[in-house]
């Protein structure tokens, strides 16, 4: 009897288990196992590469397909800003953010998170409001600032007036070279929306100041989204400035933060801090220039940036007059901006980096074409795809029309080579599909 009872208990447990399993199998799973999902990239034919620790965080954060990042890493063709220094840039930004929110801003602003991000195209920095408050600084920002600074430095010469003062001139002897370098840089901003070059190990204080200004600007946007928190810096706007009210307000906040931070610092430090503002605004001016907004009289319009800079100059001038800042702050704000303005006034068109890349590769032996392919995949991965395709189409069609020339013939072969040698990266790369319509 005891045995039967035991068997009966076992049977009951078995029945209960069976019932439970049946019910469980009937229940629609809310989160079906990732491994069974055919859309899961892990089920696709991925390049079996080992992830570097640095790259792993980007793969998790960015929307860029991991396959492309892994391939670029394998080719040793990742952007320099992506492959090193992320941690230190992030730590620096987080420290700046923590110091800023400690200053007694409304509690809600403390919810804002800050991050260094990787995204397609050029964003520099941004503030997101809505379901979350966040400030992002683009990973490529230091390299863009560094390059612009190099270009500007190459265009000017400094001459001592006396022991304390220096006069800055445009270097007329090298101006043509300067314009040519600027055109290529602007070409990257305009036609690719991506730029890469070796990044210095140590970040220059000027680049740091520029980044700091942009961070404060974005924090200004965060505060502007919190009712009443920026009421203390209301400024009278001209009717033509109304359109740019939010940007001017955020700039004003960033200006105040910079001024407060540097008012007790040495004139040289103020010079660097305000040169940083000038550098950041000059980069924005370049991007505004590349935006191709054309005014009624046919000139490229950079109205928004110009209005913003006029305001910054105005506030700095007032602060200098009131002895809150030294005249060096004023000089710092002017030199880089004025030079950029002069350079841009001399430019009517930009150089196509794709044309340059293909043209230079035509004189290379075939075994070296990998360099062009790697560069192209990098641009296509991080840049603005539709702009790159539009540019590629122009260069391709131009080569097609001139096939009697060996260079044009070679250019077409390079196109074929790039597409064939990247076929294993499809469909993530998306190049083949995009070029099919004009190549076939």
């Amino acid at each position: 009897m005891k045995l039967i009872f035991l068997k009966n208990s076992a049977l009951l447990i078995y029945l209960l288990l069976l019932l439970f399993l049946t019910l469980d199998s009937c229940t629609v799973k809310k989160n079906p196992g990732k491994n069974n999902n055919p859309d899961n990239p892990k089920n696709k034919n991925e390049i079996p590469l080992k992830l570097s620790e640095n790259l792993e965080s980007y793969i998790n954060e960015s929307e860029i397909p991991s396959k492309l990042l892994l391939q670029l890493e394998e080719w040793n063709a990742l952007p320099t800003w992506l492959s090193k220094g992320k941690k230190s840039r992030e730590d620096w930004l987080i420290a700046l953010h923590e110091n800023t929110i400690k200053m007694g801003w409304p509690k809600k602003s403390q919810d804002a998170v800050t991050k260094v991000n990787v995204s397609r195209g050029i964003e520099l920095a941004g503030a997101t409001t809505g379901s979350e408050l966040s400030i992002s600084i683009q990973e490529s920002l230091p390299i863009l600032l560094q390059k612009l600074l190099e270009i500007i430095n190459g265009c000017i010469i400094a001459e001592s007036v006396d022991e304390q003062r220096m006069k800055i001139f445009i270097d007329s002897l090298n101006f043509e070279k300067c314009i040519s370098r600027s055109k290529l840089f602007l070409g990257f901003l305009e036609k690719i929306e991506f730029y890469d070059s070796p990044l210095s190990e140590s970040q220059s204080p000027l680049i740091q100041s520029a980044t700091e200004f942009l961070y404060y600007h974005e924090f200004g946007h965060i505060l502007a989204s919190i009712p009443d928190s920026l009421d203390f810096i209301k400024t009278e706007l001209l009717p033509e400035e109304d359109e740019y009210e939010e940007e001017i307000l955020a700039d004003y906040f960033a200006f105040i933060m910079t001024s407060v931070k540097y008012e007790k610092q040495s004139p040289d430090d103020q010079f660097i801090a305000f040169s940083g503002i000038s550098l950041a605004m000059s980069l924005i001016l370049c991007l505004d220039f590349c935006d191709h907004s054309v005014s009624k009289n046919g000139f490229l319009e950079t109205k928004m940036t110009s209005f913003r800079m006029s305001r910054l100059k105005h506030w700095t001038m007032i602060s200098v007059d009131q002895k809150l800042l030294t005249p060096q702050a004023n000089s710092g704000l002017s030199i880089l901006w004025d030079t950029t303005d002069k350079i841009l006034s001399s430019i009517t068109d930009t150089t196509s980096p794709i044309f340059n890349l293909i043209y230079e590769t035509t004189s290379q032996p075939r075994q070296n074409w990998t360099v062009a392919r790697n560069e192209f995949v990098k641009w296509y991965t991080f840049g603005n795809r539709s702009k790159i395709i539009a540019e590629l189409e122009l260069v391709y069609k131009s080569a097609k029309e001139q096939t009697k020339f060996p260079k044009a013939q070679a250019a077409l072969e390079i196109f074929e080579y790039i597409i064939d040698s990247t076929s294993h990266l499809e469909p993530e790369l998306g190049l083949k599909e995009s070029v099919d319509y004009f190549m076939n």
Partner: protein
Amino acid sequence: MYCNSVFDRIKLFRMIVLRFSKFVLLVIITLTLAISCKSKKHLKSESNINSLEEVLGKGWQCYAAPDEFKKAGIVLEYTKDKLYVFDSDYSDKSISGNSAIGSINYSLNTNYGGVLQLLQGLSLFSPDSNISANLSRNTIVSVNYKNTKKHVISGITAQTIAFDYSKRKLVPTSRYFLIRESQSALDLNIEIEKSVLDTLFGSIEVAKFAKASSNKFSEGKNSYVLKNEYKQALGICTLVTELDIKRGATGIQKVTLSNNPHYIPHEINISKK
């Protein structure tokens, strides 16, 4: 020893089943009942605001005060004064179909003021009488929505709306919400305790209304049932997404759709700007 072979095992199983079949049957019946009770509990709890999410899906919420503005494609602005105001209407771009949920029973914990607001909002019963009742007294109102339809804004349309908003000058202190999906109804029945309506409007007014609108009014033991059919569907439940606004350093504004649903307070009234 007892069950050395498969045959013995089968024998044992048959014996147990035969001997204890009643007991096993009882267990199965109990389990079935328990499961069915659980399912019924689900159905019953449709009348509860939170469990509607279980029926409709994550992010869904239903409103105490349904209206035409609570439909897919409407963009709401949440102002710094904490008001939800109508901002724009893309509902003509929504796709509509019969709702799988059929009818929705919804019980609302509210107060007399809330009942008043509900009746006025639904144009059900609002006589011109002075109200001197204590509007803060609590009550429960049961609402049954019939003839329900579902309206959905497609992913591409939602992206287009976000893009449209990227080009607009938005108020920095405001937040913007897009109703992605909605459930609407053409018919509704509201059951209200007799004492509530009598206290609010007076039994004479209620009786007058009952006589004049017998097709819209019925009287139970302790409650009145008010019915109405609408030409324009009433938005009763919604799934809302926030439009996140990214302001770039270059002055470019990008609007994207948040991944998480947003819950608008269920008692909210959407006002016009």
